[in-house]
């Protein structure tokens, strides 16, 4: 009967899981896009590949720490329960993490890989057998990884959406919302990383690509949030009452000002402002470094807030308590 | 066993019978099937009797590894109806309360400062005996006061006071229900039980039976009301749980219940609805009553009570139509106003004139069961008269109980003689009596204060020496006969050994008696005492039975109408039910209840009303961790209209001030109270730091209550205080 059984660690975990999925997806996509038979965005593909596994690995560690009995986490893998989103999610997450690491490994520059293995004692022969060049299999690994990344992106939403007891969550739109938010966060994180990498300054076409990608994902996310709100209003009373949490209730300001405003609409406006001249009037895309920094950071904050709001408000919502909340 | 056994399922069926079967009398269904009691090496089940409130329910304690794990209801006791309430269940935490007094202690700091020196029992006894002897030497034995509250071992404490030579034994009834007891005794010669199980129409004045305590009355009535077999009319300035469950709730103007009752009598007599045969055969003074109530019309009562006259008339008609299965319920804690006795008398008279005496669904004189008695050496009668001058001021009151508030006045004034030592058993006068400042003054005037209790009450906190009593689960007590419609004998035996250095009250009394040279009067053990009591129980192998079952009930078949024979003599002066009382007249009181409008609070004040909730017993158990969870502090109920006028918001801290004190409380702005009253719950705002959960949390009503008492019984009147409420 604690109001919040899931707290900040879960929020962070959901955010990081989605972030990895988004990073992998964007990086994989960049790997597939070619101009004249040559990869169009090799630096994006590499940056994404190298970053992708870490957030989810950290997130999973946090999730395990959040368990009442962290050392029993292995039990997640001694059972498979197809009815439980968490059970499916655990497997999905694990496989995705492994693929993401393999994919990152495939993108590891030769000298880094050699340096890494030079630290492994020579007697550990089995380990040294892993010292192989996978760069030829990047496309295959990306192809295998795509569905998993989408799966993880969706899963973080399904985990909440599958809970029929919480009217705030219990709609199929939550999964999509979380997915597009994840993909948008991935694109934004890549943009941020590229902008911050001063040794290899980001190039204009790269900025343009990532901004375009993000505009698409944010728009899709908006197209889910609107029906979520409208549908909720038209739904059964309990859902309508649950939506009150963000339509007048305790999470209203956080949702509208910070998430919708700062986390979604403002970065979208910045990105459109940057892209529109080149798109509509055919002008050269310049790409302001500062605006890219601002937009990408705000998108990440928005992605985090979405999960924060959903995890907390969702726990407050309930079929039998809602009437009394008002 | 000779009892009728009945399956629980059948019992439920019986109580669930539809109104169509209303004619059936529900009796004999009070013992259910015996539950399988498993016994493993480590697990024992010991029947005992609950002590957390005065109802004395039978319980079966489950002991595992030497610890009490669970208390289950014992279905064999008709008076506990196979239940234990929240308190009963939480008794385990009384034993394992970290705040318990764990060994005898002698005060080393100033009184109330909370500095204690743990001592051995010998030291504690020697110290107390020396002090008592000094007071006796200097002022005589009557200078000692012995106050206690109802309990199986109270008798030993009381006897020590008497053997010591003091007439000043003061018990709880005048802080409780002395006015009811006296009013019914004066009318019927006894206080009957109310057959709520079979009643069809019940009126209650503020007796909050569904909320303040759980007894058979609670259970019988909730069944009847909810199965639509009984109608409940409830008068209370506050919307209680009982009000919520009642068929009709009237937020009566406080202090005017007597007007309502007199108007009912008026209607019943005027419309010729009284039970003429019964009145002729068993009562005296009816004609005087008929004359007396002529002016008490429903229209007059409407002005007094704010209950519409048409409702009073209708209720009077319904009440007399339902007779003899109709009841004006007496209530338990009853002491509200200075006319309380007369209000209860009027209830008794109303009941008498519709002829519900000794009838199914009416009032039933209590059946008793025989019990043996241990005969100990009797002492000389105390020579001095009582310090409360009960003979002079309250000649009709129960002499053995004393009159608490008058006693305090006299002790404070030092007249008729000084009282310098105060022994207290199981009672907390600091919270039980109104006007705590006066009680503190009385404490200050004492040369010696000794307290015997299980927990560190506020009274114990101010004592000079504290004797820790073993909790009820840790001791064996005398056998008790529970008189009633379904009489029973209950026994409390030791379930576990005391976990701290505590003693049962008898051993504490004996320890003191030995040092006071009174050992001869207490020359027995609890086992001898109990064996003597077992001896006359009308069952074979009584001792074995009681130890195995913890309770013995008669057949479960109540008998009605035993007193309705021409030669029955009521224990009154005339031998009849006295509608008109010569004895009251002789004592200078109204022989028939006369109404006087109660004083109303001025515009800027509220009448403070009090109440209880069944999680706690008076000021006790609010420190019990399992019960404390349900209510962590008390608050001040105030109607939104009144609160708005004063700018008081829900949850705001307010000052509640009377002529004798002021407390701070959180405001609970609620529709559930009359706009001219405020309400607070009893039992919080403790001064004792060894009540750590409620120490200084909320407030004690005793701080702001003013001293007032009922004129006839001396019963404290708790609703006579007007308070000012302001934002703090």
């Amino acid at each position: 009967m604690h109001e919040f059984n899931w707290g900040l660690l879960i929020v962070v975990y959901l955010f990081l899981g989605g972030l990895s999925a988004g990073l992998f997806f964007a990086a994989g996509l960049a790997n597939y896009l070619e101009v004249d038979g040559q990869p169009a965005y090799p630096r994006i593909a590499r940056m994404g590949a190298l970053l992708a596994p870490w957030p989810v690995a950290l997130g999973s560690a946090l999730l395990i720490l959040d368990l009442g009995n962290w050392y029993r986490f292995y039990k997640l893998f001694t059972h498979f329960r197809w009815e439980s989103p968490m059970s499916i999610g655990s497997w999905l997450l694990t496989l995705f993490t492994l693929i993401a690491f393999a994919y990152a490994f495939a993108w590891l520059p030769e000298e880094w890989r050699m340096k890494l293995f030079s630290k492994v004692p020579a007697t550990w022969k089995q380990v040294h057998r892993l010292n192989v060049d996978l760069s030829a299999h990047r496309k295959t690994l990306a192809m295998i990884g795509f569905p998993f990344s989408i799966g993880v992106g969706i899963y973080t939403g399904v985990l909440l959406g599958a809970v029929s007891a919480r009217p705030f969550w219990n709609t199929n739109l939550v999964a999509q919302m979380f997915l597009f938010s994840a993909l948008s966060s991935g694109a934004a994180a890549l943009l941020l990383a590229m902008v911050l990498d001063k040794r290899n300054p980001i190039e204009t076409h790269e900025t343009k690509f990532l901004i375009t990608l993000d505009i698409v994902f944010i728009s899709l996310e908006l197209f889910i949030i609107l029906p979520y709100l409208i549908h909720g209003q038209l739904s059964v009373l309990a859902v309508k009452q649950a939506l009150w949490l963000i339509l007048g209730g305790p999470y209203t300001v956080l949702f509208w000002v910070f998430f919708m405003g700062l986390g979604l609409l403002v970065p979208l406006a910045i990105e459109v402002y940057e892209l529109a001249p080149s798109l509509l009037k055919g002008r050269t895309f310049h790409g302001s470094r500062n605006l890219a920094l601002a937009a990408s950071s705000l998108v990440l904050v928005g992605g985090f807030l979405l999960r924060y709001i959903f995890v907390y408000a969702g726990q407050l919502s309930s079929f039998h308590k809602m009437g009394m909340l008002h | 066993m000779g009892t009728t056994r009945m399956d629980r399922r059948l019992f439920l069926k019986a109580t669930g019978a539809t109104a169509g079967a209303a004619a059936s009398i529900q009796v004999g269904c009070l013992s259910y099937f015996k539950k399988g009691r498993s016994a493993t090496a480590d697990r024992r089940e010991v029947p005992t009797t609950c002590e957390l409130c005065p109802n004395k329910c039978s319980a079966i304690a489950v002991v595992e590894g030497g610890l009490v794990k669970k208390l289950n209801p014992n279905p064999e006791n008709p008076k506990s109806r196979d239940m234990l309430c929240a308190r009963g269940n939480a008794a385990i935490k009384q034993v394992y309360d970290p705040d318990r007094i764990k060994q005898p202690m002698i005060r080393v700091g100033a009184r109330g400062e909370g500095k204690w020196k743990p001592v051995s029992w010998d030291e504690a006894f020697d110290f107390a005996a020396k002090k008592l002897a000094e007071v006796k030497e200097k002022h005589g034995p009557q200078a000692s006061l012995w106050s206690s509250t109802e309990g199986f071992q109270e008798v030993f404490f009381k006897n020590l006071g008497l053997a010591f030579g003091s007439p000043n034994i003061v018990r709880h009834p005048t802080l409780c229900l002395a006015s009811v007891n006296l009013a019914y005794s004066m009318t019927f010669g006894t206080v009957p039980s109310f057959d709520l199980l079979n009643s069809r129409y019940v009126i209650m004045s503020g007796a909050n039976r569904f909320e303040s305590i759980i007894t058979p009355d609670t259970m019988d009535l909730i069944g009847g009301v909810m199965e639509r077999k009984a109608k409940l009319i409830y008068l209370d300035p506050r919307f209680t749980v009982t009000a919520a469950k009642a068929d009709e709730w009237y937020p009566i103007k406080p202090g005017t219940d007597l007007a309502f009752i007199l108007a009912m009598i008026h209607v019943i007599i005027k419309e010729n609805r009284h039970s003429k045969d019964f009145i002729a055969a068993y009562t005296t003074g009816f004609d005087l009553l008929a004359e007396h109530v002529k002016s008490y019309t429903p229209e007059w009562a409407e002005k007094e009570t704010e209950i519409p006259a048409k409702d009073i008339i209708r209720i009077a008609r319904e009440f007399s139509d339902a007779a003899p299965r109709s009841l004006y319920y007496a209530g338990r804690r009853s002491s509200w106003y200075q006319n309380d006795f007369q209000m209860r008398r009027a209830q008794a008279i109303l009941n008498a004139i519709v002829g519900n005496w000794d009838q199914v669904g009416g009032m039933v004189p209590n059946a008793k069961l025989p019990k043996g008695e241990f005969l100990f050496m009797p002492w000389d009668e105390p020579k001095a008269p009582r310090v409360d001058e009960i003979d002079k001021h309250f000649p009709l009151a129960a002499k053995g109980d004393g009159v608490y508030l008058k006693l305090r006045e006299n002790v404070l004034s030092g007249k008729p003689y000084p009282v310098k030592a105060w022994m207290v058993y199981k009672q907390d006068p600091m919270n039980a009596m109104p006007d705590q400042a006066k009680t503190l003054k009385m404490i200050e005037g004492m040369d010696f204060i000794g307290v015997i209790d299980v927990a560190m009450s506020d009274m114990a906190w101010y004592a000079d020496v504290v004797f820790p009593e073993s909790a009820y689960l840790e001791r064996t007590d005398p056998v008790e006969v529970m008189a009633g419609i379904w009489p029973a004998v209950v026994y409390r035996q030791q379930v576990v050994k005391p976990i701290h250095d505590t003693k049962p009250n008898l051993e504490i009394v004996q320890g003191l008696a030995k040092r006071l040279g009174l050992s001869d009067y207490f020359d027995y053990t609890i086992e001898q005492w109990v064996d003597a009591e077992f001896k006359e129980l009308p069952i074979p192998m009584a001792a074995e039975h009681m130890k195995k079952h913890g309770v013995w009930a008669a057949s479960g078949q109540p008998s009605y109408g035993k007193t309705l024979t021409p030669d029955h003599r009521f224990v009154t002066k005339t031998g009849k039910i006295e509608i008109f009382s010569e004895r009251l007249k002789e004592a200078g009181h109204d022989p028939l209840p006369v109404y006087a409008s109660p004083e109303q609070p001025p515009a800027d004040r509220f009448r403070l009303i009090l109440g209880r909730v069944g999680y706690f017993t008076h000021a006790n158990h609010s420190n019990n961790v399992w019960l404390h969870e349900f209510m962590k502090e008390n608050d001040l109920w105030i109607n939104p209209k009144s609160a708005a006028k004063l700018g008081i918001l829900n949850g705001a801290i307010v000052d509640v001030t009377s002529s004798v004190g002021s407390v701070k409380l959180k405001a609970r702005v609620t529709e559930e109270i009359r706009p001219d009253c405020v309400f607070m719950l009893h039992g919080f705002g403790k001064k004792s730091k060894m009540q750590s959960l409620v120490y200084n949390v909320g407030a004690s009503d005793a701080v702001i209550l003013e001293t007032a008492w009922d004129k006839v019984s001396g019963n404290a009147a708790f609703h006579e205080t007007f308070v000012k409420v302001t934002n703090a």
Partner: protein
Amino acid sequence: MSNTVKLLVLIAALTLPLAAEGGSDTKGKFFFKKTCKSCHAPGGSAKEVTPLSKTQAQWKAYFAAGKHKKGAEKLDSVLKPEQVKDVQTFLVNHASDSPQPETCGG
């Protein structure tokens, strides 16, 4: 008891001094239970007697007569004179028309 006897008892009661001063209620209860009750108990060798068996006046009359066993034996032969006084006090105090408001517990 025949009506004549009742009448005589009544007359006796009215003409005799009404109070038995100075006896001890507590001791009276003790001796009553110890001595009288040894026979006058339910199932005892004599008829059950309780304080409620008589009114105050009837008890006073009974003690004024000072007889026992339907008048065959003097009360003094069962109880010492002082004990008789105590028992009388106890029985009168708790007679069937005595004012004895009920209490709670104790």
